[in-house]
């Protein structure tokens, strides 16, 4: 680990001004990606701005539209929240599948979304549920937020405050974990509203999370696992690596989509 300065601001505005004053400063939330990266000397920030003591970022609240989850809410809190389980049970299921107990007790939803790892779980839920990422500057629709591998609409120094998830009729998440890392090799979140079905895929795409629109269209008219059986996801835009080529990932996406629908119907 390289040396760095450490600040733990007490107010959001103070955090913003620390970040504004130093373009090489990094935000520390749960640290589940950042700290291993620092330990391996793969990053050399001048300063860590620890958001851990900021007030008002750690609540889960039922809203008129659904549920609002503060940026510093840990995965374990989402997984075990009565509110989340009541409003969007699939989201609680997803949080319970992230990493391992140590990660779930430290990692935060804001940190996960700001990092936008292409194999992380939360992006699939945010995109499928058409959630809104609220920052200290603005609200960003899910469709605009994710912009590629580890790339989001966040500007320099912009801080996620919470995520607003709308309630849907039905939702389900199924994940095929990478055998080694247990990140998603294919994670599919299916969300059904009166108007449409959105199918978001994480872990498989070359450019990060994406909507599988063809599956959404088919499921809109027939919300059943069998409806996807005849679909074939084009492997051209999917990842190939040691653990499986794009063709295999296409198969996994389809299999997980079926299971996610079954989950949503359960």
């Amino acid at each position, binding site marked *: *680990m390289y040396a760095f300065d450490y600040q733990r601001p007490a107010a959001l505005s103070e955090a913003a001004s620390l970040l504004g004053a130093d373009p090489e400063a990094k935000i520390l939330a749960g640290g589940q990606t950042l700290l291993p990266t620092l330990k391996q000397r793969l990053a050399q920030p001048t300063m860590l701005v620890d958001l851990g003591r900021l007030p008002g970022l750690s609540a889960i609240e039922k809203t008129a539209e659904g549920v609002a989850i503060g940026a510093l809410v840990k995965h374990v809190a989402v997984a075990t929240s009565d509110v989340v389980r009541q409003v969007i049970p699939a989201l609680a299921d997803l949080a319970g599948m992230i990493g391992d107990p140590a990660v779930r007790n430290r990692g935060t939803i804001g940190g996960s979304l700001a990092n936008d790892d292409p194999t992380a779980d939360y992006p699939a839920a945010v995109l499928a549920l058409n959630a809104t990422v609220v920052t200290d500057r603005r609200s960003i629709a899910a469709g605009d937020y994710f912009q590629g591998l580890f790339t989001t609409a966040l500007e320099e120094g912009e801080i996620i405050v919470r995520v607003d998830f709308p309630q849907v009729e039905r939702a389900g998440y199924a994940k095929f974990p990478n*055998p*080694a890392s247990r990140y998603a090799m294919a994670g599919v979140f299916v969300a059904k509203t009166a108007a449409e079905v959105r199918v978001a895929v994480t872990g498989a795409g070359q450019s990060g999370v994406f909507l599988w629109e063809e599956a959404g269209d088919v499921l809109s008219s027939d919300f059943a696992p069998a409806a996807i059986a005849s679909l074939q996801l084009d492997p051209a835009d999917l990842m190939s690596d040691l653990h499986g*080529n794009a063709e*295999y990932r296409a198969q996994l996406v389809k*299999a997980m989509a079926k299971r996610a629908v079954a989950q949503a119907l359960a």
Partner: protein
Amino acid sequence: MNESIVTPIGAAVRRKEDQRFITGKGRYTDDMNRPGQAFAYFLRSPHAHAHIRAIDASAARAMPGVVAILTGADLAQDKIGDLICGWMITSKDGTPMRMGSHPALAKDKVRYVGDHVAVVIADTLDAAKDAAAAIAVDYEVLPAVADLGTADAGAQIHDCAPRNVAFEWELGDRATTDAAFAQAAHVTKIDIVNNRLAPNAMEPRAAIGEYDPGDEAFTLWTTSQNPHVARLVLSAFVGIAPEHKLRVIAPDVGGGFGSKIFIYAEETVCAWASKRVGRPVKWTADRSEAFLSDAHGRDHVSHAELATDAAGKILGLKVHTRANLGAYMSTFSSCVPTYLYATLLSGQYAIPAIHCEVDAIYTTTAPVDAYRGAGRPEATFLVERIVDKAARELGLDPAEFRRRNFITTFPHQTPVIMNYDAGDYAASLDLALEMADYKGFPARRAEAEARGKLRGIGLSNYIEACGIAPSAAVGSLGAGVGLWESAEVRVNPTGNVEVLTGSHSHGQGHETTFAQLVSARLGIPIDQVSVVHGDTDKVQFGMGTYGSRSGAVGMSAIVKALDKVEAKAKKIAAHILEAAEGDIEFKDGKFTVAGTDRALAFAEVALNAYVAHKFPTSEIEPGLKEGAFYDPTNFTFPAGCHICEVEVDPETGVTQIVNFTAVDDFGIVINPMIVEGQVHGGIAQGVGQALLEGVTYDADGQLVTGSYMDYTMPRADDLPSFRLGLTQTRCPSNPLGIKGCGEAGAIGAPPAVINALADALGTQDVPMPATPAKVWALAKTRAVRQAAE
């Protein structure tokens, strides 16, 4: 903590050492800190193969906190010798193996990614890392030789080894084997890849070197399975210090699986550099370094053919194996794919003729050496795969084909050196078939098929040679050392006992099992016995722990020393009890005059031995302390039957192990709980090899599986609850009748798993590791094949 009870052999005594380990009170090398210590960081090669034109460390040397930066030139200046391989193999043309120079710090060339270019010694590890980044190395990059199959045609890695061949060796008789094949009614052929594995001990390697200028002596704390062998090699070959001026301490060691047998560059440099810089020098590997530089295991490519007659009896076996040595010959790398491999190719079967050729090849990858099983898993995998394939080609049930070919009389001389002393292979097979409900499998398969799942069942009848070994025998095969073991039993005046052993425990539970043996033999409570190991200043000499040898050889040495203790104590008791020595009986911790109630407790005799008032010291020396060296008369031959049942999800390629049965014959068992633990861990590693683990280098020789993000370790949820059984034939080759249990799981499991997958998928071409992606592709092919039929 143990109760204060006498522990009989065969009792499931709880591990004495666990209290220490699970409460964080263990003392591992990295827990040690020496006054004034500096930290070593190794600058490692980023290239698989390169000439070093120049190293410029001038800027780095000037950085804050830097104590020294040392390179191969400094090693040469101090006349420090190369690391060695301690087992000489002779090629079939009569030439000795071609051992490439292996300096602890590269001299003019690097040969794998992670090879040691320089060491930075600094006040802190961070300062050492900062300075390492400032060292300018001018590399002339050479072509990598990462692929075993084409290494002959690749760039030459060592000047002494044209075609990158270290040796081309054979065992068995080609002519009789060819003659057997000429009589065959059927020949089964198979191509097998035995995947490369990273050892992944929980504790990474570590070392602290310290030089005392007053005594002119070194102390080296290091993560070793065999500290005395480390001292011998570092003294006699590397030239760090004379043997009596080098103390090697291997304190608590957190797992080894073979990888901590070897003498590596890092501990060599820490010891040597401590004198040069005048401060203790500490190094602890991080997990990335472990992946890069721990000696890997396995990595064979083989072609085998099995000849059978019309009655389904095996006539002969031919094997050609290419074994990857990596970039250098590690300490015991040469014996692993030769005498620890080809000698087991008869398996549990009466095979009249065997011929095996092994080509050992250098590549620009990390060195390959012994890893849990070391050669024997490779042999068992090959034999059990080809036997399974042959059974299916002959239309025989795999269990029946095996049974038809079992060795049934002992001793049995195989055509490949080994002389099996005892076993009952049908007994293990029968029990395993029953425990696995083999008969009920067709119904379970049909039920799975109705759920859209593919079920398969696979057998593996493994055998291994453990308890290595008669010293003269291994000497005749090229070993540079004898493979006996030592023990010393020190009885204190108050009757408690310290046992000094040349074995080394790094997870095996010796502190319990060895104490249990002493408790049972002397009739004293187990908490009155402590086991001392791992320090060359305490234990005079020993050969260490590997190859499941510590029960059969290490404990036999303790038995010999206990025999001597008892004999001397009887003499002393006879004087005190005023009886003839021949009338003294020792039982349940008491010396009794036969036929009387006159008796002395063991502790009373111990006290008298030191007080020395009541016996003539002109005839009997005071004290009660005896040592012994035990050299075994043969290897031991643990054997058994593993049966794996799998269920494949054709939609995702996920293999679930639904049942795993292991029936083992380990001979006499001292502590069944510890044995069970060894079997559990072994099976987990075997399943890891079969389904999950595989070291992968890319064409440029870069390590792709350099972290747990890509290298898949077995986890608890990958495994079922095992069904374990024991059969027992006493080993006639050591006084306790022990065969050894440490490696059996890792040897037996891989072919059982792969045979089960072959059964489920209807193809014999199932690669390891059989990852979900590969299994899915095979399941898809099966579906296409079935649709066509």
